[in-house]
């Protein structure tokens, strides 16, 4: 499987630059997820790799071959579109075999491949149906199947699950992860959903406004976000941010003081001002906890609860194990793991 390299990729739309100098290398056999809020350029990046979008400047290399100006069909890629894009005048079998028929592949071979993939995706009973007679989930599978029969070197996914309802999305996500185990191919997956990114990706590329904010494994992004944006984007419920400053090995904010682990916060701004990042999961209930926490909103999820209350004067979300629902107005004793404290420079938004 070839390595895909983006070199100094630039994209202008009618005078406005939406992407400036993107560099990214996607390793062999990797599942790369491009994630970010809408308008961050993740879909544009994918479409440029696919060859559906012109590249203003820079190069795209697939397996060392410069494909920047090549047609999509010369790039050996298969793509799954956000809204399926099934050919409505063809039945499922013909939809899936379209690419193979264009290649003038042997009929028997086409038939074999379509049946194999249909088997895997549970579409065998629907091969004769037109897309209009399929449910959303089935259409999604056909779209996937159309890419899988291709046996292309790289699969591109453009928010393939965003049109499905929550339950189906979870199911398809699991199936996709399973498919991913079986199909040893490069996969590039675009989504705005950080849960999809975390669960599917070998490597996640977090983008914002045409720039890469951080590239890393799900764990790296979660444990060591490089900046405020990544910290706030990855993780659910999102990280709490509080203004504070460093004082004698502690971080002090309005109405709270948290101990820092040894050797932390060397590079704080001269004023000592920092932004403190605390994931809801960084809190734990502890008898010896030194943070009194009065519950203002309680969302009981079963094993855990998401509680909203105040840390000093600032509102924070806390996620703690709860054997039984916590009542609003109750006061809990919470502690914070010093290792899970994130510090950011308030000016540059970079992690300290």
């Amino acid at each position, binding site marked *: 499987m070839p390595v895909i390299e983006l070199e100094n990729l630039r994209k202008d739309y009618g005078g406005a630059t939406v992407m400036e100098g993107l560099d990214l290398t996607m390793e062999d056999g990797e599942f790369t997820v491009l994630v970010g809020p809408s308008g961050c350029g993740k879909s544009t990046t994918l479409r440029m790799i*696919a*060859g*559906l979008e012109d590249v203003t400047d820079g190069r795209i290399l697939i397996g060392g071959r410069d494909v920047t100006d090549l*047609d*999509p*069909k010369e790039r050996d*890629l*298969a*793509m799954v*579109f*956000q*809204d*399926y*894009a*099934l*050919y*409505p*005048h063809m039945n499922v079998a013909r939809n899936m075999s*379209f*690419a193979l028929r*264009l*290649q003038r592949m042997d009929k028997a071979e086409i038939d074999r491949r379509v049946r194999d993939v249909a088997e895997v995706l549970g579409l065998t009973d629907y091969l004769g149906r*037109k*897309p*209009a*007679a*399929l449910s*959303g989930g089935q*259409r999604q599978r056909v779209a996937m199947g*159309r890419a899988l029969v*291709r046996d292309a070197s790289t699969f591109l996914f453009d928010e393939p699950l965003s*049109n499905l309802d929550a339950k189906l999305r979870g199911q398809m996500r699991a199936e996709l992860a399973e498919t991913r185990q079986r199909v040893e191919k490069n996969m590039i997956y675009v989504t705005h959903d950080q849960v999809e990114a975390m669960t599917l990706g070998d490597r996640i590329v977090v983008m914002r406004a045409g720039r890469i904010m951080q590239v890393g494994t799900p764990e790296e992004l979660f444990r060591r976000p490089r900046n405020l944006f990544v910290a706030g984007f990855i993780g659910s419920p999102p990280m709490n941010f509080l203004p504070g400053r460093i004082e004698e090995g502690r971080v002090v904010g309005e109405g709270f003081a948290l101990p820092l682990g040894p050797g932390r916060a060397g590079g704080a701004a001269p004023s000592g001002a920092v932004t403190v990042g605390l994931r809801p999961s960084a809190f734990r209930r502890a008898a010896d906890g030194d943070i009194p926490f009065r519950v203002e909103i309680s969302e009981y999820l079963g094993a855990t609860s998401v509680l909203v209350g105040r840390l000093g004067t600032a509102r924070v979300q806390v996620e703690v194990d709860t054997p039984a629902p916590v009542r609003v107005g109750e006061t809990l004793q919470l502690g914070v793991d010093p290792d899970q404290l994130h510090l950011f420079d308030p000016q540059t938004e970079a992690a300290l």
Partner: protein
Amino acid sequence: MTDQATGPGRARPAAPPAAPPAGVPVRAEDAPVAPPRRRRREAGPVFYVIIALLVMMALGPILLMVTTSLKLQVDIVSSAPGLLFAPTLQNYETVLCDVLWYEPEHVRFCDPTFSRALGNSLIVATVSTVLTLLIGTMAAYAIVRFRFMGRDAVSLGTLLMRMVPPAVLLVPIFGIWTFQYGLNDTYAGIVLVYVAMNLPFVIWILQSFISQVPMPLEEAARMDGANPWQVFLLVVLPLIKPGLAAAAIFTFRIAWNEFILANVLLGRNTRTVPVTIVNSLTEHNIDWGVIMATGMLLAVPPVIFTLLASRQIITGMTAGAVKG
């Protein structure tokens, strides 16, 4: 109808009195059996009178044509009008004398004009329809999908051209066709005019159909390895079939019925049917029976063509393509 309304066998009080709107094919099984959902307001006598008048206006001339075409000249000119006459196919035999497998005994001299004219009409109408659709789809596709300078101007300009009445073009076309290119009396000449005349409207119709084909479909086809021609032929074209059918009906019927330009531009051997009919009105003899028979035969091909083409006009071609 009124009998039915009072009769004992009237089973469905709220049955729809009017035919379904024109152009909407109604399958037999889903038309009448639906249970009455709510009582519709009873249609009064005025309604039926209006319907009857409209039906008469639509069918009257056709009825007159049919009966006249089945009459002998004697019956036609006789002062006793009416529907009582001995129907005969003589007029049809006269018109079709040279294509019939037998020789009608009443025909003394077989005039091949009509069958020749019918052939001419078929050639002219078919060729202009095919050419118009061919050029029209490609032009419409280009206008919708390609970005080029003056795209909007082209789009609007094509339609503006349509607003020029053919009669205005008559003299210049006749002059140029005859004296500059020698295209008078040729099929090519008239086909060229018909194609030019119908293209704007066809392009305009097809534009709206093409712009409804979702862009991701074309992108998917490109990812699947289709070149631009294959995208156009294998994905776009099948999806705009209803538009093609509508455009084909429109073009075919205009080319089939057109009189003024055909009358001016065509010669003895290339004349189309409408011109031939008018030309058969001579000062010596107006054989109404033959003219009406010709008229009836003239109506057959477009009816067949329209029936065939309209089966392609179905909605929801792109259903299921993308998430709605």
